């Protein structure tokens, strides 16, 4: 009964879906990105209840569940909270390895800011100070900050 299975050639079908999306950044996110693009400024926002400063700026505080209206300009500098150095390649990565993903606590912010470090990878340590390097051609996206560098 099951003998035929021995001779079966297991076939596959190739497929790929590439669906274009246009994500609306929203008013709050748009102001944040426009400030990166036009003024090389990093904007956060402060929760009126818990006082936490979020970056990128948020429209509301997730924990207190209240609207946020106060904008805070942050220094483009902070300390490395945690990081990893990536050694493997994948088409989805923003730059070629090796590079570091780092959570950076910007001065005046209460949450980490996720970004890249491309230089001095052998010198990285938690607690070291880094500053944002803006890219020359800015189009209103998070990578308008090219990366962070050791101060």
């Amino acid at each position, binding site marked *: 009964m099951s003998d035929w299975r021995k001779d079966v050639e297991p076939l596959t079908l190739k497929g790929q879906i590439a669906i274009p999306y246009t994500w609306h950044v929203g008013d709050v996110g748009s102001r944040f990105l426009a400030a990166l693009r036009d003024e090389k400024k990093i904007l956060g926002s402060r929760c009126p209840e818990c006082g936490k400063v979020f970056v990128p700026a948020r429209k509301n505080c997730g924990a207190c569940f209240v609207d946020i209206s106060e904008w805070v300009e942050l220094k483009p500098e902070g300390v490395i*909270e945690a990081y990893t150095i990536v050694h493997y390649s*994948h088409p989805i990565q*923003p730059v070629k390895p090796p590079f570091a*993903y*780092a959570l950076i606590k910007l001065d005046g912010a209460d949450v*980490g800011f996720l970004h890249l470090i491309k230089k001095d990878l052998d010198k990285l340590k938690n607690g070291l100070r880094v500053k944002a390097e803006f890219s020359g051609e800015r189009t209103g996206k998070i990578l308008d900050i090219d990366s962070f560098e050791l101060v």
Partner: protein
Amino acid sequence: MGRKVAVVGTGQTYHRSHRPDVTSREMIREAVTSALADADLKIKDIDAVVIGNMDHFESINYVDTYSIEGSGAFMKPIMKVSTGGTTGATVAIAAYYHAASGLFDRVLAVGFEKNSESDTTGAIITCSDPIWDRFSYSGAIPSLATEATAYMEQYGATQEDAALVGERDRNHALNNPYAHLQRPLTVKDIMASPMLAYPIKLGDICPRSDGACAMILAADGIAQKTASRPAWFKAVSVRHTYTWFGDSTDYNKGLVSMQQASQEAYARAGIRSPVDELDVAELYLPYTWAGLKWIEDLGLCGRGEAARFVGDKNTHMGGKLPINPSGGVISTNCIGATAMLRVAEAAIQVMGKGGKRQVPEAKNALATGFGGCFWTDVVILSSERP
């Protein structure tokens, strides 16, 4: 309070890297028929079905309907639940809610994945916020690697400490005929494997598997008649956090969602000292470092003590609290089924059906699920009706 509910049957496939011989729904059917056989029930006995896999993996959106021939849910109430890495545990918990509500007596839960059919990293990245976090943190590895470096710096744990978790789980897998990777891996092997994102090496991370898992849950009164030793739900807990990697994951605080979910579950189950009162744990540990840091978040040992706790073989088979007798996620990872396998393996232990991987006289079992931006499911099962 809802009705009391127990697991009365489990089934799973023999997990492999590729299953070219079956489609997803044919693979699902293997797990479902095996669970029905385990519970000695027929498909007509099932009142409702909950199914789940990870979105974007097989490019099938309507798996509730797609899977009908495999799940046996034709003309039955079926719902798809998908929560990323936790999917399998969430499906089990949703099935528990179904039965506990009083609306359904016997509920079938199914989790599956054919990781071989897609690009895992390309699919996993869709759990990151498309505007803010998707440009970076590609796939699962970098965020976990960042967590691991923070833990290393905080407590001085070494790469060898973490590798012992991998050696343990891969050794345990040798007792599990269903496990995908059935070749032992030593600390030395893991240390010699290629570096992916420091400190995660190839040997530290879970594989991609094809497989399915099914469980049958029954309400109080029916469960006792269906199984000689049902695995009773003592507690379930679900905790989700923000997707912002920068503020949901203050790595130095630990895995907050796992701390809160486990504390709530212990309280509901009346457990004061988990390491003494639990007999076995099936934990969603997708990489070796989780076997150190997260067992601290689960309160199984103190902060910074995990390396010694694991090093002293407390979590090996025969130890104080064996972790992952099945071989865990490091040995088998069919993502939509992975977290359900934790719950099902916990049930198998409580029901005394573990064969070579059985922990003797296991009464209370802990199972966890973990997902992408650091969220957590916790389930506690017991042979004792709560």
